[in-house]
């Protein structure tokens, strides 16, 4: 029953895509952030994951994010260096969510990094995160905090930190 309803909904969307005179939507209106969650942390930094889904006709680009619990928020990718050691680093191009497709944020891959936490993120709590698109629209989400031991790659800042 539920499956057929989903199939029907998808079919309806596909039909809508065939209509030439569709309204223009902002990126935030066509993108949903499914199953958002954040890894628990007392201090320092932690990450937000989930699946970005774009039901629109144009690619959507996420360029930044903010959160009331972090002094700084970066969009990160994880990449292996010449020795195969994985590090995470800022993804300068941001996240692209293809039209009619999705972009997954997962441990070991792209994620939203919350840095310099202003309060502990404890399991079961909700964290507010707002993602910003390059058309100026923004999408607020509530990520549930999870006790998660994975995704602890070394952090390699874009530029060396001024430690002075």
């Amino acid at each position, binding site marked *: 029953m*539920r499956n057929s309803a989903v199939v029907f909904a998808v079919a309806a969307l596909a039909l809508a895509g065939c209509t030439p005179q569709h309204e223009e939507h902002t990126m935030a209106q066509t993108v949903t952030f499914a*199953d958002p*969650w954040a890894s*628990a942390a007392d201090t320092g930094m932690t990450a937000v*994951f989930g699946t970005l889904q774009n039901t629109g006709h144009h690619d959507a680009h996420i360029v930044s994010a903010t959160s009331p619990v972090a002094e700084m928020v970066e969009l990160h990718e994880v990449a292996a260096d010449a020795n195969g050691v994985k590090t995470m680093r800022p993804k300068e191009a941001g996240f692209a969510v293809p039209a009619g497709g999705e972009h997954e944020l997962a*441990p070991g891959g792209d994620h939203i990094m919350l840095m310099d936490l202003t309060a*502990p993120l*404890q*399991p*079961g*709590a909700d964290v507010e995160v707002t993602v910003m698109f390059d058309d100026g629209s923004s999408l607020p989400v509530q990520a*549930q905090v*999870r*006790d*998660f031991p*994975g995704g602890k790659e070394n952090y390699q800042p874009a530029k060396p930190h001024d430690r002075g």
Partner: protein
Amino acid sequence: MRVNRRRLLTGGAAALAAGAVVTASGVANSAVVDHGFGTDAEPFYGPHQAGIATAPQAHGVFLAFDVKPTDTRSERDTVAAILRLWTVDAARLTAGRPAVADTEPELATRPARLTVTVGLGPGLLGRLGATVPRSARDLPEFGPDRLQERWSGGDLLLQICGDDPVSIAHATRVLTKNVRAMAVQRWRQAGFRNARGADRQGTSMRNLMGQVDGTVNLAPDEFDELVWLGDEVYPGLAGGTLMVLRRIEMQLDTWDELDRESKELTVGRTLDSGAPLTGQRETDEPDFTLARNGIPVIPPNSHIALARHRHDGERFLRRPYNYDDAPEPGQTSNTGLIFATYQRDIDTQFLPVQQRLAQFDALNQWTTAIGSSVFVILPGVRSPEGYLGQELLAG
């Protein structure tokens, strides 16, 4: 030749014929459908939690946790966080969807009627300032009991049932690890009934003493009166129920010493069909007045004579599971029954029966309760916006 329809439907030939039809359609289906019952799912949302009125699944795991004290959160906030996490993941896993942040999502795709049922211990409820149902308190140690701390009590209960032990193991792992910072596991009991499909649906299970178990149970239309809590007295608990969970060890080595007739006199039922000693079929009403040569056919201290309700209000739902765990070195068995019952009022429904059994049950010589817990099972979650215990914790 004429076929007598009534004989066909009730006789042995009918059973054979029906079996042939089932087998044939099973084969026909298997050519079209590439899955078994793995994708069967029980509904999660509703006024009551699943796993109580649900037809008993083949496997059940019961886990108790104690809330860890922390400096950073109140106990109320910690419990709310645990219940929110469990709600989100239970809704997904029982529907065959991976949990949030599931590291083994492939294990979630075959729920096989997975249910997750959550309860709170009366002690925790009291600490949270909730109105604790009057009869929800730890049971005393009855005469024949040898209760062990390691099988008793707890702040939180997780009952995870399903027809596939793999999805149960996955759900158990997910729900346990996600709260490890907030709760410590106190005990875990795993049980089983006959495998799904091994018998006709609705067949009473056999316990590991060989007895047909659970013949007298509630009909679906009796749950409102005998199982579910009403909203008149206990805010936030309407639609919940009270659970008694007793771990009953069986002394199979000494049970073996009894001949068959003695075993049947102890229980009051025949071992083969489960019929009362005064009847022919399992479902026959026992006749406790019938005597031969002045001796009652069903002994007054037999298990069924004492377990029998004295009035309609002394009934409750029984949903037991067998256990057969690894024996200690040098022992031959570590076997028994995880006796789970659900009722509105433990004092009026469960206790009178339990007191009779504790005092006189002939079976006590071969069975010993080694664990005892009482939990208040929370109401169901009505929609994806809600979470278990929401109303209770908001109040």
